[in-house]
Each structure stands twice: as structure tokens, then as C-alpha cells.
């Protein structure tokens, strides 16, 4: 038997848990302002998250998926992508969405049960959150195809969880990306759980990054709790995509530090010790340590950031809670470009006419 093909999967980590450098720092991360932006968005994401969970617990919002522990992933990818690129997120990508210009109040509206939360006042092309798992990956492939057809120098970024890598839409997106050499970067937030299913029962693949091999393109792993590594690997992959060098699959390894959603009780299936251990690796402390080592931040400045974030969240909550509800008949108003006459009667019924 002769060997006809060989493959390897790499793993990138730049900052360790204590905030020490394991590799030379990438260029983008030499600028303290950039690091402070990443830090600030991670704090904002976490503060927002806690508030959103509280809103749900007090009956002021619907089911909500927390992104506790995923801040480096979300902020890292959101910071890597360029404004003119297109993002097709999944439901734990709030940090990235904020960086894309989606308003905090819009995210609250979405989870509060109001379609206007996906209207996006400040962005026109990104996809909204897709509830059926992994389906957004194929939308992203389609967007990338359109971009390629039009010879635009833009890239597409799409995200999903570890569980999502088992779905058809994921493998189809992988195959599409490879076949058409699409300007597409697929990132997997491997937080070790798909609701109650642990990563090792999701697939026998040693890494999820190696699923790219089925599509004939590069896959790699990064430490998903290391925002510098995530930001670096994703930005590089997006550059390649824009430069016509084809797609990448990036698996970011982290841990879900929260329940799956507010409808879940993870204590039923997550081992307490494992969870405690996972907290040791969480993304925010690590970056803060680095910022402190580097004298990029003081205790006091840190405090200010936290307060500013809280304030921003409070304002968003105000806006969310004070938004006039949609009219019931709005359920007909965006169904088609023009309401078919057969539906006028039903619309009138809803209006009580």
C-alpha cells in the first residue's frame, strides 16, 4: 500500500492562563488601544450577558443563551472581520455582533421575542441569528459565492458550536467552500457541550478542525480562551479569503461556563470539578493579567471600563423595555413584498376590523 495523501492539524495559543506570552505577539496586538478594545468588548459582553439572564429570570425576556466563557471567541472573531465583510453568526455570538454595530437593544429585542431585533439599524448585510443549528453556514457559503462571482475583495465569516459540526449544513458548507474555493472562514466555538452532549460523544474525530480535510482545505485549532490567538488566526484566514487563497476552518477551544440557555440546568450533566477547572482558563482574567503585566491598564482604569460597560448595558435595557411593541398585524407586513389579496381578510381579523 502506498501513501497518497497526508494531513496535519496545528494548534495556536499565544497567551497562557497567567497572561504570559507563549509565542511572539502578533503585530496587531502590539497596539495597546487594540488590546483595550478587545478587553472592553469582552467586559461589555459579559456584563450584557449577566443582565440578559437577569431579565429572563424576572420574566422580562424570553429564553436566552448566555455566552459566559465565550467572550474571547466572540470578540476575537468580531474584531477580526472587516466592516465590508459579511458575518453569519450563531446564537452565542453577541460580542461579535456588537462589534459589527448591532445594538445591544436589538439583541435584547430579538431574545425578547421581537423580530425588529434582526432589522439592524447599523448594518445591512449580516445575517440574523439562525435558530436551526448550522443552517447559517450554508447561507454564508452562498454569500461568499455571490462575492466571488462579483469579484469583490470581501470575505465571509460564519460561526457555530461544536454540536453544529455534526449537522448536514455544516458538512455541506465545508464541501461548498472547498469546491468553489470560496472566500469563507468557518469558525467553530468548541465549548465542549451541545446542551448535555459532551464533545467526545459528538464525534470520534480527534479535532473538529480536521473536518476541513473532508472539504480539501485547511483546518486549525486555536485556544478559544485566548482572544489574541483567536483574533490573529481569524484575521489571517480572512485575509487569505479576500486574497483568493480559499477557505479555512478554525476550531476555537473553550468551555461553556453557563447553562446552555436559561431553559437549561447544566448541573444535571456537568461535573462540578470540571466546571471549576474550566474557570481557571476563562478568557477575561488572562487578558487582564497581560494588560497589567504590560502596564496597559490600571486597577482604576479597569474599574472605569466596567462602569462604562454597565452604563451602556443599562441604557440598552431602558431602550428595550421602553420600545413600543409591534402592532399585531405586523405579522403580515413582511411576509411578502406585497401582501397577496387573499390575506387581507386575515390581516383585518388580527386588527379586529
Amino acid at each position, binding site marked *: 500500500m502506498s501513501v497518497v495523501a497526508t494531513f496535519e492539524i496545528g494548534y495556536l495559543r499565544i497567551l497562557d492562563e497567567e497572561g504570559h506570552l507563549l509565542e511572539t505577539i502578533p503585530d496587531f496586538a502590539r497596539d495597546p488601544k487594540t488590546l483595550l478594545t478587545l478587553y472592553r468588548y469582552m467586559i461589555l459582553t459579559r456584563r450584557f450577558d449577566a443582565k440578559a439572564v437577569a431579565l429572563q429570570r424576572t420574566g422580562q425576556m*424570553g*429564553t436566552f443563551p448566555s455566552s459566559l466563557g465565550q467572550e474571547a471567541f466572540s470578540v476575537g472573531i468580531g474584531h477580526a472581520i472587516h466592516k465590508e465583510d459579511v458575518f453569519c453568526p450563531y446564537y452565542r455570538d453577541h460580542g461579535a455582533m456588537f462589534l459589527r454595530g448591532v445594538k445591544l437593544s436589538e439583541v435584547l429585542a*430579538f*431574545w*425578547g*421575542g*421581537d*423580530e425588529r431585533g434582526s432589522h439592524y439599524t447599523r448594518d445591512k448585510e449580516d445575517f440574523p441569528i439562525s*435558530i*436551526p*443549528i448550522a443552517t447559517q453556514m450554508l447561507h454564508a457559503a452562498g454569500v461568499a459565492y455571490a462575492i466571488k462571482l462579483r469579484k469583490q475583495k470581501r470575505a465571509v465569516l460564519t460561526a457555530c458550536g461544536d*454540536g*453544529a459540526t*455534526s*449537522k*448536514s*449544513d455544516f458538512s455541506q458548507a465545508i464541501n461548498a467552500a472547498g469546491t468553489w474555493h470560496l472566500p469563507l472562514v468557518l469558525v467553530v466555538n468548541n465549548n465542549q457541550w*451541545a*446542551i*448535555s*452532549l459532551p464533545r467526545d*460523544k*459528538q*464525534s470520534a474525530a480527534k479535532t473538529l478542525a480536521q473536518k476541513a480535510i473532508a472539504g480539501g482545505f485547511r483546518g486549525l485549532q486555536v485556544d478559544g480562551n485566548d482572544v489574541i490567538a483567536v483574533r490573529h488566526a481569524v484575521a489571517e484566514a480572512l485575509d487569505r479569503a479576500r486574497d483568493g487563497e480559499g477557505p479555512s476552518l478554525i476550531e476555537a477551544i473553550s468551555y461553556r461556563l453557563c447553562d446552555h440557555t436559561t*431553559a*437549561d440546568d447544566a448541573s*444535571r*450533566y456537568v461535573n462540578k470539578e470540571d466546571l471549576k477547572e474550566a474557570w481557571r482558563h476563562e478568557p477575561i482574567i488572562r487578558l487582564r493579567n497581560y494588560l497589567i503585566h504590560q502596564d496597559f491598564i490600571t486597577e482604576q482604569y479597569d474599574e472605569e471600563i466596567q462602569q462604562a460597560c454597565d452604563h451602556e448595558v443599562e441604557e440598552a435595557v431602558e431602550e428595550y423595555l421602553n420600545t413600543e*411593541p*409591534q402592532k*399585531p398585524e*405586523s*405579522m*403580515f407586513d413582511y*411576509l411578502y413584498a406585497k401582501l397577496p389579496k*387573499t*390575506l387581507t381578510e*386575515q390581516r383585518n*381579523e*388580527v386588527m379586529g376590523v
Partner: protein
Amino acid sequence: MSEITIAEALNQALNHEMAIDENVVVMGEDVGVNGGVFRITKGLQERYGAERVMDTPLSETMISGMSIGMAAQGLKPVAEFQFMGFIYPGFDQIISHASRLRNRTRGRLTCPVVYRAPYGSGIHAPEHHSESTEALFAHIPGLRVVIPSSPARAYGLLLASIRDPDPVVFLEPKRLYRMMKQDVPDNGEALPLDQCFVLREGKDVTLVTWGAMIHETRQAAETLEAEGIEAEVIDVATIKPLDIETILKSVQKTGRCVVIHEAARTCGVGAEIVAQISEKGLMDLLAPMQRVTGYDTIMPYNKLEKHYMPSVGRILLAVKTVMEYV
């Protein structure tokens, strides 16, 4: 004697059947350690092991496709889809294979699978968690479609569905999971899969419904009673094959009929019922029938969902309309 909910009755039925028939296996996302997101399969994995209560990877295509191979080997898979809105990746295998295996092999291979899914709105869940698309399955030859609406019927119909030698799509009105309690003895007695249930007799108007709308329909019937109108309430329960005889008999008596369902109106199961009544019972009708249904628009997100769901008020209005003809 202890009273149990629909959720508990379903669990009781699964437990009963797994205990007496080692071929029964449960499969789906989070059905094992977690006991299912609605806790319907709670405790089963502890009792019957991870091989018979399988946590599957996140793939409805896989669930539906594998269940067919398992069933062909004589297992009786009870496959859970987490929500009805997530069945569709498994739709192809269900309608292209599960429903056809017996026919395609002239009886050599069969497919005794139960495809369970919570369905319907009213729990303030996100998009795709609230739809009612039973009509899509009711159109497919070779399937059975069953919807319980009380703890006793949940128990008896699920037992019957597991024992049925052909594939059954078993839809659970999630809004009712914990709404009511009933004494349901764990006696292993199944209910028939080819019969409607007359929940309330009446001579003035026939109200035909199923699933969670049983709730609003009964409330409407009570209000009507106070107004002196005796409504007959029929729970269709088995949507396919449809026991039209029981419905026709009722309409023969009342001459008036309102069909109520949560699903969108166009090409919903209500259309089939109204069509059959008009074909076979036209001469009995004293008034045109009415359908009270979800609208032909996308189920709104939860802030507006109550405006989409048929309300007691809308049912009463429809009854008033059919009663007006003299």
C-alpha cells in the same frame, strides 16, 4: 392513585414499554443523561442503559435515517426531535424511506419507528419552536400521525404507537405538557389509533380539534353551555388515518361544524376535514362550516404569538356565525 401530567404520562408509557420489550430503544438529542429538554425521557437512561437510551450527535438527518435501519432489524426506535421545527433535516428519510420500506419490499422489511416531537406554541420560545405542521405528515401515505391531548390519551396512544408495526409521527402539544393532571394507571393498556375521541356530547354544533387547542375549545364549549348552546367536542387524536365517520356522525346530529387548529389555515388538516364533511355530509349541513386556525403567516416571535393562536373568543365568534344560519 396519583395524578400525573401529560409529560409524566409519556414518560410512564416509555418506561412501561422499555421494561416489557427489550427491542424498544429511545434515541435523540439530550434524551439520555439530561432526560430530554422537556424531561419526557427522564430516568430512562439510568434504568435501561446508554445503548438503549441513545444520546445522538446533533443531527436530525442521522436520527431519522438510522432509526430506519434499526427498525428493519426488529428494534422499535422511539426517536425524539427536540422541537417540531427541527424535524425537517430528517424529513427526507421519514417520507422517502420510513413511510415506504414495507411497501417497497412488499412486506419483507418494516419500519416500526415512533417519531416524537413537541409541537405548537404558547410557551414563549424562540423562532421555530412553536409551529404546528402536522399537515405535512398527514399528506404522506404510509405514515400515521397521532396527537394526544390528555395524560390518559398520551399514555394510551404512545403505547399504541410504539406497538404499531408501522411508522408513527407522534406530536406532543407542549403547552399541555404540564397543564393538567389525571389519574393514569400504568396498566399497559393502549388506545386505538384509528379513532376520534368525543370529549363532550352536544346537539347544537360540532367542534373538531386536536392538540393544545382542546383547551380553548373546551373553554368555548363551557361558555356556550352557559348561553344554552350544546357543543359536541371531538378530539381527532389520530390525524392520519382520519376517523371521518365519528365526525360525520356528529355533524349529522348537529348540522353545524367548526374546525379549530393552531396550524396555518391553507392546506392545514382542517381543510381535509371540512372537505370531507362537505363531500359526504353536505346534506346534513345547516350552515357553512368555519375554520378557526393559525393565520397564513409566519408564527410571530413570542411577543405577538398570542395574537396568532386561535383564542376562545375567535372560536366563539365562529360558533356564533354558524349558529346564525337558520
